[in-house]
């Protein structure tokens, strides 16, 4: 069965550094998402992406965050200058249908900001 893949599985960085989290969504999917989950807490929406532009974004997704689909297969989340509170599990997801349908999630990237 096709799956969403995320790399790396773990990322450790120093506060203030830039990180890029990478995702390969399922190939025929049209909507792409980033969510994050701080340990033991709820899964928080960051951003959705459709037709090469941001469809919706949350208050968390400020100017420090950006997304890109550089080559038609990868979908990346960049955090420009990481803060301690950015430490979380980051999940990429995609869906084939219209937005808001069944999401397929990757296994996540655990980001630790020191």
């Amino acid at each position, binding site marked *: 069965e096709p799956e*969403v893949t995320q790399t790396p599985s773990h990322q450790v960085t120093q506060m203030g550094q830039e990180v890029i989290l990478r995702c390969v969504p399922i190939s025929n999917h049209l*909507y792409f*998402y980033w*969510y994050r989950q701080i340990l033991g*807490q*709820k*899964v*928080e*929406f960051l951003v*959705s992406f*459709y037709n090469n532009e941001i*469809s*919706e974004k*949350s208050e968390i997704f400020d100017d420090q965050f950006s997304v890109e689909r550089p080559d038609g297969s990868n979908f990346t989340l960049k955090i420009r200058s990481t803060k301690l509170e950015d430490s979380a599990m980051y*999940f990429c*997801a995609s869906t084939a249908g*219209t*937005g*808001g*349908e*069944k*999401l*397929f*999630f*990757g*296994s*996540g990237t655990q980001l630790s900001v020191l």
Partner: protein
Amino acid sequence: SQQGEEDPQALSIQEGENATMNCSYKTSINNLQWYRQNSGRGLVHLILIRSNEREKHSGRLRVTLDTSKKSSSLLITASRAADTASYFCATVETGANSKLTFGKGITLSVRP
């Protein structure tokens, strides 16, 4: 309260028993979905119920939706130890293009 609040927060049952988990939400929705998350893993979609549906079944799963009470329940029948996981409800609000809003989740432990 917030969109998508599950109840109880934690549930422990014996293998073979049924598990019932509840979710309440605040706004008008297009659909409501349930997901499962095994420890340290991504979320896996279980079932989707649309706002004009009242009940859906999938294998051992039964989900109900009461839009007048803004609530949903997920029933897992004949539970197994492998059902041990966190379960989340997620809603797509009316007018939202694509965003799913998740609750805090319910931790289900099924004792062998």
